[in-house]
Each structure stands twice: as C-alpha cells, then as structure tokens.
C-alpha cells in the first residue's frame, strides 16, 4: 500500500522551506494578463446603467435612442419596468459598443424613469422595544450559520424549530457536502418544513434570546463586571481588479468566458441556465486575479449580461469590468456589527458571565450574526442579535466572515474587564485559555512567543500612558481561530517519457501562492527541481477543484497533488525497477534521480528513468478527500495571537501603528515565504480596516458617499509600522497536515489595535475605524 503521509522533516527538499512564488517574475514584469487585460480583436466594451436611487420601482425604460447610436452593437434590459430596486447602483440596462466611449454615450442616451420609494440605510442602534422575529430560516441565514461555524447541534435545533424558506435539492446537498457540512445538518434540512419567507415589514429582525447557564446569578456573584459599547462599521472588499467578465459565443452552442473569480470550477454551472446551454459547453478561463477576498464566487448579473450581449452581437466577445464606484457600491461589503456588552469575572480573573445585545447590517441580504462571545466558552451567557435590513448591495463573504467583528467586540470587552481588575491582559487571557476548547494548547504556545517579540513585559503599562506630552503609546492583543480544512480537489499529474511533468487542475491563485505550493508538493514528492513541473490552472476543462473561500484551497490542492505525485512516482518505480535490478518499493526519487534506497550507486537520472515509461505518458488522478488513500492530509482549526503597539496623538486624534506582531499556526507550512506574506498582508489589511476604511451611506439619498479611493481610504506604505511574523512549525504542528491560512490572521488586527489605543489613552474608542474624530470624541474633546 502506498504511503501518502507528508514526508518527515529529513526528507523534505522543498516542503517547508522559503521559496519565491513561481509567478513572481511574470507579475513583477507586468506580463501577467488578468481578466481586465483580456483584449482580443473585435472586443466590444460593455457598460451598465445603474439605478441612482436606494429604493425605487422602474416605471419605464427607453433604449431606442441608444440602439440607433453608431457603434452600439447590443442593448440588454437587465431589470424590466415594474421591477422594484432595493439599492443604489443596482443594474438596470447593459450595452455593448465598439469602444468604451461609444458605450458611455449610449448609457447616457437611455431614459429610465423611476418611482422613488422610501429607503433605509442606517445601522444605528435599534430601538429597544422591537419584538423578536420568528419565522423560517432563509438560505442566507443558514449559510451564515455554517460560515460562522455554529455548532451542528445548534443549527439542527434551529432548523427543526423554525423551518426553512428555501428549497433543498440534490445539487444543493452536493454543494454542502463539498463544503464539509455535517450529515446531521443536511438530514435536518431535508426533513425541514418549508415556509414562505415573510416580507420585511420592519428593517429589524431580532433573534430570540440565547441563554446558557445562569447569567443573572453569575453577574450577581462576580468580583468584577465591565460594561461597554464596541463594534466595526461596514467596509468594502475594494478588490483592485474590479469584478468583471467577458463572454464570447464561439458557436451557437459554445461559450467561452473570461472572468475574475475565486471559483473557476463553479462558474459554468451558474451560467448554464441563463445561457441556455449545457454547462459542459462553457469554457471558463482565468490565469490571474487582482483580488477577491470573498467577493468573487458568482458570475453576477453583469457577467450574465455579457453572455446575452455577446449573443445579440453575433457572438462577438463582450467584456464588462465594473468601474470603481460600482465596485465599491455594489460588488462587496462586510456587514457591520456592534454590541452593548456586559462581561464578568470571579476574583481569580476567570471569566464568569457574558451578556450581549448586538446589531448590524448586511444590506438587503440581512447579514451574519457575529459568533459572540468569540473563542471563549464563557459558562453563563445571555445574548440577542438584531439584523438590520438596509437598502444597499448585499454583504458578501469578507475574509473570515463575521470573525473580525466578533473579535473586536469580544476582545475589547475582555480587555476592558482586565483593565478594571488591574490584570495584564496577557495574563488575563492565559488564565482563561481552558475556555478556548481544542486550541488552548496552541494559544498557550503562541502567547509567550508573541509577548517576547513585542517585548510586552518591558513595554506594557496599566491603562492610560502617564508620560507627559500629547502622544500616548499603548499595547494591545487579540487571539483568533478559523477552520481551514482543505476543499474537494481533483488534479491530473502526467509524467512524460522525456521526464517533463505536468499538472492540470481547475483552480485559481488569488495571490496566496497556490501555484507555488502545488509545484512545491509535486517537485518535493518526485525529487525533481520545481522548474521540471509545468502547472496548468485557470481552465474549467481541467479536473475540478474547489472555490477559494474559507481558507480551503491550500489544504485541498496540496492533498490532491500529494496523492497524485505519490501514485505517479510509484507507477514510475514499477517501470524502472527491473532496470535497476530492484523491487519498486526499494526505490526512491531524490535529487532528480531514481535510485535504490541505501545503494545510491544503483541509480538512473530522472530523465533516463522516465524513458522507461514507454511511448505513452503516464497520467494519474489525485483527489481530496480520498478515504481510499489515507491518511487525511489536511485538517481544521488554527490558532493565532496578535499584538499591536500604537501611538495616539491626543490633540489631533491620529493613531499610528508602530509595530504589529503575529504568531500564527496553520499546521504544516508548505512555503514559509508565501505564508509569511499572507500574514503580513492580513496585518496590513487589518490596520486598514481598524483605522481607515468605512463604507459611508448618506441617510438622505441612500447612496454611498465615498465610492472612490480618495475617500474610501486604504492603508498606504506610510501607515503600517514594523511587522513581525512568526509561523508555528515543527512538532505538534507539522503532523496536523496542511491547513489554510488566508483568513485567520486578518481577524485580530482590529481588536489588537483597538485595545492598544485604549491602553494608550485610557478610554475605549468604541467603533472601528478608529478615526481622529472618534478618538477625540472618546476623549471628550469633540
């Protein structure tokens, strides 16, 4: 039986080393071609007319003038008169023209009339007297629960109690199984009562009170109770490459699609129905993607419009890429979450009780419930959440959905309690690690490492920097967790008789290093240089591999590649063994040779060995998961600790990050270099949402006030301070297998920075982003 286990440290020529990403040169030289760069002969420019009102009904559309304009090749009404529009920027009409100027002129010539309806865009604290909502669970709410890793038994109980407002067919079940949803949950869905969803008569949807233990008694007996207000505002994904897609009908029944997507294998099934052709007739292509962060799983309405526009234009390629305003207004949003929290501890500093009344908006889609309290299983709890429906583009999964918000609420409340009890927060969290479940040991390993890198003991002071001068300095910390089990992944690995190796997989590299880790695993297993491995991804005609969401790609693609490479190597050994007068199991592939273990004199070069394959290349299929080929090569559940060192100017309210420290576990690290880059990138993205980013909606017009990159501010190179990253590796970590890590390190920065600001200035700035205005307000100076 073949051994698929990850090799031990002594036999890993490439795995776990520090290797430059394989697509680095093509990117840094500007030769990488993204969907936005797709520019074939005869390409038509597509453009979308968007609704200027946050809530309206379309009463009439007149496209006649646009249709007659020179250069206009197709006009497609996306939403017909009579349709109710629920957010500003929603798609109404699309056009295709010979160039963008012609398309822009055509858009201006279209006349749409609306009946403007009242809108609601506020996610301020809901009134106290609203009643809890009962009713069936929507698909959004269900997927939020799964995304939030709500325990299976709670999901099952909620489905049984409330019923569901969506239909569960075999395809959906298959999809859920693909994401690793537990059988008990799927069974509950299948057995659930179906009920029509009730229309949103109120924008507020209040959950029932969730209670555990005896919170009243616990608060009454507590040694210390801290109360506070915390939260994080809505932000956007702001992918630098906006969403977009190009379609070309290559025959009456064949469609070729270029799309900026995190879900290459999952796009054709979503296009097949509107295109009216079998999914197998749709080829989906993407080599490079300029950011996704959870917002690019679907072809979206504008993508489907390109399919229809191309058909109307005789099959010519039509491309629509969103402009920046649309990208920020409709193509991605992270739900807000705010909470009034009461948290208590006993006189040993052990967490005793939690009470939270939380609220937030995910736009029209409702939005997730933050998993409160985050990480800590506090024995006595009472919590209630109000989801606010607002007239704005629906929330999309934003890197670690709901976790950053839950972290900022929970870790801030706990830090405030520790401050009240005069306990160093590192000590306070350490005392309560037994409430963190299976990750306790990881945090116990990580906290001292982070404290050492931050020189916490030397630099930490009790709340409020007492030194003179307006600039106050402080430290803060937060911990986080995430699943990250590898997704379903198939790949074909071919060894050619000339020694070249080729891997095909319909996956995508978001800039995470996906190409690099696949190549490392194959080359490491086959004992050949990475240059010998040609990796082909980004084409839906290759074997199916999962969507890149939930940090599932690294575990998935490395597992399928490892199994394929081991099988291919063993088949090669069987062909080569007679020539070396050995048994196949006595052979090893090392340093570009195939040789007899313990007798390196009996060897063939890789090329000569591959010549024994015969005339036809050898191809094997690798899969994940694959119970027939144990062990499980991936795993779920990572832990991380982060600390921030900030300076706050108490006169101007400006916060500067001096240093950030991240200690992160992700099981077996395949490439230390790209893994560290992921963590640093997450720290920077975290600094950005902690201090600068906010999707600001105008209550009067219901429109986003800052749909551009001047006022929707990202962190720049001057804003990031010094970053230190430590990856947990070696015993206790490597043997867990490969676990994805794109999301976990982006969870803690907001909380760590908020805590550092509180430590510096002595008061809590309740909400992210921590803008100068909010700092001054917290200081009572606004």
């Amino acid at each position, binding site marked *: 039986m073949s051994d698929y286990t990850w090799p031990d440290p002594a036999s890993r020529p490439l795995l776990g080393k520090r290797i430059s990403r394989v697509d*680095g040169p093509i990117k*840094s*030289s500007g030769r990488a071609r993204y969907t936005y760069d797709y520019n074939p002969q005869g390409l038509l420019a597509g453009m979308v007319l968007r609704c200027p009102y946050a809530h309206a009904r379309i009463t009439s559309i007149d496209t006649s003038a646009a249709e007659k304009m020179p250069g206009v090749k197709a006009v497609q009404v996306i939403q017909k008169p009579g349709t109710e529009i629920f957010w500003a920027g929603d798609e109404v009409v699309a056009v295709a023209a010979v160039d963008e100027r012609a398309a822009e002129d055509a858009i201006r010539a279209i006349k749409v009339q609306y009946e403007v309806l009242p809108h609601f865009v506020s996610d301020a604290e809901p009134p106290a007297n609203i009643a809890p909502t009962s009713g069936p669970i929507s698909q959004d709410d269900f997927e939020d629960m799964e995304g939030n890793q709500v325990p299976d038994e709670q999901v099952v109980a909620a489905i049984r109690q409330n019923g569901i407002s969506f239909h569960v067919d075999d395809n959906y079940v298959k999809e859920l199984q693909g994401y690793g949803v537990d059988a008990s949950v799927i069974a509950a869905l299948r057995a659930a009562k179906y009920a029509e969803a009730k229309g949103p008569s109120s924008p507020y949807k209040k959950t029932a009170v969730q209670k555990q233990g005896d919170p009243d008694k616990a608060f009454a007996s507590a040694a210390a109770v801290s109360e506070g207000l915390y939260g994080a505002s809505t932000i956007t994904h*702001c992918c630098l490459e906006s969403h977009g897609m190009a379609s070309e009908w290559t025959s009456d029944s064949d469609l070729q699609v270029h799309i900026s997507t995190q879900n290459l294998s999952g796009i054709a099934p979503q296009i097949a129905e509107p295109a009216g052709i079998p999914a197998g007739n749709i080829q989906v292509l993407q080599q490079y*993607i*300029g950011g996704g962060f959870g917002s690019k799983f679907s072809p979206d309405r504008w993508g489907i419009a390109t399919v229809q526009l191309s058909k109307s234009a005789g099959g010519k390629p039509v491309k629509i890429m969103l402009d920046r305003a649309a990208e920020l207004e409709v193509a991605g949003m992270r739900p807000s979450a705010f909470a009034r929290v009461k948290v208590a501890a006993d006189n040993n500093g052990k967490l005793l009780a939690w009470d939270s009344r939380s609220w937030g908006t995910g736009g029209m889609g409702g939005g997730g419930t933050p998993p409160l309290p985050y990480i800590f299983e506090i024995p006595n709890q009472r919590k209630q959440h109000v989801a606010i429906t607002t007239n704005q583009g629906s929330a999309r999964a934003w890197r670690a959905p709901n976790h950053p918000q839950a972290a900022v609420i929970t870790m801030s409340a706990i830090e405030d309690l520790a401050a009240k009890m005069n306990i160093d927060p590192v000590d306070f969290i350490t005392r309560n690690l037994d409430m963190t479940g299976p990750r306790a040991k990881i945090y116990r390993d990580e906290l001292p490492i982070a404290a050492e890198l931050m020189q916490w003991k030397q630099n930490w002071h009790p709340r409020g920097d007492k030194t003179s001068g307006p600039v106050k300095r402080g430290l803060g910390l937060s911990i986080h967790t995430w699943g990250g089990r590898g997704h379903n992944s198939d790949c074909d690995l071919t060894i050619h008789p000339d020694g070249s190796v080729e891997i095909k997989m319909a996956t995508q590299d978001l800039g995470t290093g996906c190409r690099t880790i696949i190549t490392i695993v194959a080359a490491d297993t086959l004992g050949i240089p990475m240059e010998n491995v040609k990796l082909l991804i980004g084409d839906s005609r290759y074997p199916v591999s999962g969507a890149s969401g939930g940090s599932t790609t690294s575990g998935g693609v490395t597992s399928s590649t490892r199994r394929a490479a081991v099988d291919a190597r063993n088949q090669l050994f069987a062909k080569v063994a007679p020539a070396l007068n050995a048994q196949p199991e006595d052979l090893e592939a090392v340093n570009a040779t195939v040789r007899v273990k313990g007798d390196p004199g009996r060897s063939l070069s890789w090329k000569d060995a591959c010549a024994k394959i015969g005339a036809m290349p050898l191809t094997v299929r690798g899969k994940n998961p694959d119970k027939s080929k144990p062990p499980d090569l991936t795993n779920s559940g990572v832990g991380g600790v982060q600390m921030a060192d900030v300076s706050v100017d108490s006169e101007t309210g400006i916060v500067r990050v001096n240093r950030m420290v991240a200690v992160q576990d992700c099981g077996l690290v395949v490439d230390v270099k790209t893994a560290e*880059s992921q963590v640093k990138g997450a720290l920077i*993205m975290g600094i950005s949402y902690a201090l600068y980013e906010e999707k600001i909606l105008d209550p009067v017009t219901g429109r986003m006030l800052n749909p551009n990159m001047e006022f929707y501010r*990202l962190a720049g*190179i001057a804003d990031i301070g010094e970053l230190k990253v430590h990856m947990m590796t070696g015993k206790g970590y490597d043997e867990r297998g490969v676990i994805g890590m794109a999301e976990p390190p982006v969870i803690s920065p907001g909380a760590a920075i908020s805590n550092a600001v509180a430590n510096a200035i002595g008061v809590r700035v309740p909400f992210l982003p921590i803008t100068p205005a909010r700092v001054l307000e917290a200081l009572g100076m606004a």
Partner: protein
Amino acid sequence: MKDEDPSKSDQGSGLSRRDFMKLSGLGIGMPLVLGPTVVRAAGEDVVVHGPGKLPISLDVNGRKLSAELEPRVTLLDALRDNFNLTGAKRVCDRGECGTCTVLLEGKPVYACMVLAIDAQGKKITTIEGLAEGDALTPVMQAFVDHDAQQCGFCTPGFVVATTHFLQQHPNPTADDIRRGLSGNFCRCGTYDGIRAVAHGKRADGSAQRSLLHAREGGES
C-alpha cells in the same frame, strides 16, 4: 493683436505647428471631425479637437505607436485598449491609486490623468519598456526575492514608481520611502516587501546592493 499661430493656443496638446498643418492637410479629403477646427473664443482663435477621432501618435518604449482616437481618450486607455500594453492597470481611473503609473519624460505620472492627445511628442515608458525581453530588471527581481507582491495587480505600478524612486534616492531613508512610495495603493498588503525592495536589502536582510542597473527607459 490677433495671434494667427494655432500652436500657441494649443500648448496642452503636444501638437507642433507642423503637426497641425499636417492634420489640417489631412482634413481636406477626410471627414471634418478628423482634423482640429479653429473657433473664435474670447477674441482669440482657439483650436478645437474632436469630438470625433483624430490620428494620435505616441512614443512608447522607443516605438512610435499610432491610432485614431477621440481627444477624450486617456493615455492609460490608449496604452491598454489600443496598443495592448496592459501592464499599467486601471483601478480608480481618477488619479488616486497609482496602479497605472508610467514614466512620461522620465517622470512617474498616473496615466489615467493624462489625455493621450497631450502625451504626443513626449517619451513614454511603461513597465513593458523597463526590461529587455523576458529578463527582469534588478527592481523586478527584488520584488520577486522579497515577495513584494501577492495578487500582483498593483505590482507593475509599484515597480515603475520604485524604479524611478531609487533613481532619485539611491540610499533612501525610511522616511524617504514613506513619502516617495505613498502614491500607490496595494490591497493584499505587500508594503513590507516593497519597503525591503526600496531599502535595497537582500532577501535575507543582509547587505545593501544597487538596484540601479535597470534599463532606465525614459530617464532624461
């Protein structure tokens, strides 16, 4: 006194008087919109281009590239859509993000903020013109070595900006870097690597090295 020289009232377009005469000559046998027209405004003759297409010729990476473009077409769109030079990216399209950075007469500009018609007669260098063939410039190689890129969409703009920055600041301080490279945004968070590139550090953090051997296309 009346100024009859149209090139004097047309200083922004980069058209010389000779170009203007050529264009006017073309106009005889072509639709009127092709050539500029002269109108009286505020007592002066003013040359008006467009709104239709007119022949535009650009000096890009040492090559002369021509196309018929409307005057409202930006340099960025001309490079990307007409000349298939897609290294410069379009992200904000209004001078906020730096992903479309190119060198104009050796100086970095946001190509989305320059009209193609105004870039005529000037030396334009894009990311594609920095390197010879598939070879990487030292700055590009340093971006690889320091893993100063993830999705890579901001990378070409940063490489162009960093190349020029290092020509101006061969031994930059941390503050020089903060100021000098603040004109570009990255969403994945690759600034730490870019900072290391600008510091001229080796990937292992050790000695300095010069990154100034880039083919300094467009440097005046």
